[in-house]
């Protein structure tokens, strides 16, 4: 099993789970009670966006056979979803205010980027940590 790639757990990934826990706390407690100021009110959910949805999107791709392996998300996959979420939430939905509630805010893109970078660093470290004993065992 020396060539086994690192095993990404998709929806059970700790980064995704933590984001799924923080999201409702922010949505139903912090924001209504005005705790945390402008950051929790305007940007915390945007920071959580990629850590939460990249594993879900990659799991959908996995189920569809587009991502047969279980490697940790790569820089390209995070960047691809950053671009898609930016287009959908900052370009498309603000043009249809009667249909969608999203209001375009360029700082949201920075929040997506920050969340994506934090998650990307975590996944990169996790991939190295998991693959390290395999390499050591094969020596």
């Amino acid at each position, binding site marked *: 099993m020396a060539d086994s790639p690192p095993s990404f757990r998709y929806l059970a990934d700790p980064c995704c789970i933590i984001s799924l826990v923080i999201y409702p706390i922010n*949505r139903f407690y912090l924001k209504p009670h005005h705790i945390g100021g402008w950051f929790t009110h305007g940007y915390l959910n945007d920071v959580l966006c990629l850590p939460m*949805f990249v594993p*879900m*999107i990659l799991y*959908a*791709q996995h189920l*569809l056979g*587009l*991502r047969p392996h279980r490697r940790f998300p790569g820089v390209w*996959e995070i960047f*691809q*979803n950053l671009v*898609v*979420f930016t287009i*959908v*939430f900052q370009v498309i*939905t603000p043009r249809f205010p009667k*249909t*969608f*509630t*999203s209001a375009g805010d360029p700082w949201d893109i920075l929040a997506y980027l920050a969340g994506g970078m934090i998650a990307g660093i975590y996944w990169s470290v996790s991939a190295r940590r998991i693959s390290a004993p395999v390499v050591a065992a094969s020596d």
Partner: protein
Amino acid sequence: MYCRKCYTKLDPTDDFPRCPRCDRGFDPTDRNSYLARPFPGKWRIVWHIFLTTLVSFVIAFIVANFQLAQASGH
């Protein structure tokens, strides 16, 4: 010479040329039936990017509709 499906190295001297891993058949005399290097072709990469981006767009629009439902109290 590599398999077009799983990129496994192929043996053109086989009597019945098939990929040993995925069993896909190939013709050593037909360059379109195998890859010269173990890497997906240009159109396969483009198609993969298109499909994965489509999945991302579909999920992003589901999230946008979920936000709409939340905001409208449904």
